[in-house]
């Protein structure tokens, strides 16, 4: 017989018969037309197998012990099949979660290590620029925003300067807040600067750096910039420092740094106290061809002048002398121009242009640890890192366990369906 698996309205006659059966089982009288059905129901009830008293006693004891003895009712003629306890599955689940956790930690740790323990993420692009090649790298980092504004009660202080070499005392007098520390000490934790290969090549490098600092720390950071530039024998070509104590405080610097020290300067500037890197751009242009062309033009001009001087020595007429003098004058002008070009190119190669902007941001800037000190800021920073790593590990674990869980659920569903089908087949063939 096939079980009906869909609902349908029940026939009134069938419903009446079922009601009669229920009534007779409840001890109520039934209509005479259902007498035969009622008698059959009572006969069937009378065929109910009695429960053996010994079994009742055994069961009562087991229930009173709450099935304390790990006992699976033995099936006659069959060795008891070992069942996997709930503890096994719990242990298996915990083991799987542990493995996923370890894998997540390894992956996250590897990712952090490959980033050089820096918050900055970098993208790089290479593009042709005229006769040279340009390499541009931009890096930026997000910073947390949890600290409140320091207020805007401080008076506005503005300092502007033209070109000057090294952080002179004049800058310090303009920026009334004293320098807090040597930024060079924090260079080890700064972002790494890209260094294009320069062996045998003439490369012009430049960089842009945008820093964020608390409104009341603009002067501090600016002073550190001067210190850093001085330490690398750089030039502050132009600077404007405005401190209002409010969000409109800012500082702009046009700096010229010896190219050999650009990496060091960028590292130090990227890890100034109270400042955080908002964006950073490193650019380089290969001018080897341009430089070589200028050198050849200079050599040609010099050769021409030498030749003209020899011709002038042999000149016999006034017209020849005048003409040669004019040509020599032009050649010397060309030589001067070519020498100036070479000098400019040499300066561009030897000194890199660095544009630095500091803007006020109401956010906690990471304070570089001084001699390994531990404070609230450091603790908060570390706690943030721990939470970030924990969230990453959790995300990776979820990503790893989700497909496993889906497969397990599918297998469980298929297994349950197969088991249900086999049970029904066993009933059909019983």
């Amino acid at each position, binding site marked *: *017989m096939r*079980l*009906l*698996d*869909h*609902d*349908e*309205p*029940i*026939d009134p006659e*069938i*419903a009446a*018969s*079922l009601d009669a*059966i*229920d009534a007779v*089982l409840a*001890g109520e009288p039934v209509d005479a037309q259902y007498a*035969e*059905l009622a*008698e*059959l*129901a*009572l*006969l*069937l*009830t*009378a*065929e*109910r*197998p*009695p*429960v*053996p008293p010994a*079994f*009742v006693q*055994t*069961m*009562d004891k*087991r*229930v*009173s012990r*709450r*099935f304390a003895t790990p*006992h*699976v*009712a*033995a*099936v*006659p*003629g*069959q060795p008891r099949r070992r069942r996997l306890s709930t503890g096994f599955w719990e242990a298996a689940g915990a083991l799987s979660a542990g493995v996923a956790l370890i894998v997540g930690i390894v992956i996250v740790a590897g990712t952090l290590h490959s980033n050089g323990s820096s918050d900055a993420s970098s993208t790089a692009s290479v593009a042709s620029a005229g006769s040279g090649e340009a390499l541009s790298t931009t890096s930026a980092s997000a910073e947390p925003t949890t600290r409140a504004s320091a207020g805007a009660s401080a008076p506005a202080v503005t300092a502007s300067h033209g070109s000057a070499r090294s952080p002179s005392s004049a800058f310090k007098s303009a920026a009334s807040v004293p320098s807090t520390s040597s930024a060079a000490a924090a260079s080890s934790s700064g972002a790494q600067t890209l260094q294009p290969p320069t062996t045998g090549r003439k490369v012009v490098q430049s960089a842009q750096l945008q820093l964020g600092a608390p409104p009341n720390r603009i002067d501090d950071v600016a002073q550190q910039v001067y210190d850093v530039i001085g330490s690398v024998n750089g030039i502050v070509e132009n600077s404007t420092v405005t401190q209002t104590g409010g969000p409109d405080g800012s500082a702009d610097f046009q700096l010229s740094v010896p190219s050999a020290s650009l990496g060091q300067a960028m590292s130090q500037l990227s890890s100034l106290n109270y400042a955080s890197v908002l964006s950073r751009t490193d650019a380089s242009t290969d001018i080897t061809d341009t430089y070589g062309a200028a050198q050849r033009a200079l050599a040609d001009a010099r050769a021409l002048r030498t030749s003209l001087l020899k011709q002038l020595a042999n000149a016999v007429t006034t017209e020849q002398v005048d003409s040669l003098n004019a040509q020599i004058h032009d050649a010397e002008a060309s030589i001067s121009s070519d020498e100036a070009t070479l000098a400019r190119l040499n300066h561009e190669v030897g000194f890199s242009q660095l544009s630095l902007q500091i803007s006020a941001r109401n956010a906690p800037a990471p304070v570089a640890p001084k001699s390994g000190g531990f404070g609230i800021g450091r603790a908060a920073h570390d706690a943030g890192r721990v939470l970030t790593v924990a969230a990453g590990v959790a995300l990776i674990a979820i990503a790893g366990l989700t497909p496993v869980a889906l497969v397990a659920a599918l297998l469980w569903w298929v297994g349950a369906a197969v088991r249900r089908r*086999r*049970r*029904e087949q*066993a*009933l*059909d*063939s*019983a």
Partner: protein
Amino acid sequence: MDHAPGRSEGVTVTMNASVAPTETSSWDRFESLYRSSRDDVYAYVCTLLRDPGAAEDVTALAFERAYRRRRTFDRRRGEERAWLFGIARNAALDELRRRRRVATLVSEPTDVEPVGDEDGPEVALRRTAVQAAMASLPPREREIVALKFHAGLSNAELARVLGVSESNAGTLLYRTMEKLRKACNATA
């Protein structure tokens, strides 16, 4: 014939002390379920398997499983009795599957209850006819009889255990009764 359907009663169970309130509550519910359903489950399983010894084991296994899973019971999916009989049904069908694999037990003879004649020869004759008709029923229909008349399930509970709608369960029961009635009349 005014034989009322027998039901489990008079079961006393020793309670363990020092258990949490939630544990006590779930245990009380299980104990109540056991007390009210023990004999019914046994009767159902015994009718289905036609083997009292195996019925004892399967009944014990069903209650143990129900005890282990008592916290997973969801009242929104049906009453506890239907849930318990679902567990018992699965255990019984597993036993039938096992029997099918064990060839030596397939032909195990079933015990035949001797029909007494204390109610008179006519009643004894009718009981014999009912027993013969029951024996001729396919397993699925015998299961319906067992659930309805030996376990005392309502039509709704019967439908829940069989996994069909209540109207379908009623129709199946009606058809089975008609088949039994015809078989009894043919025997008479």
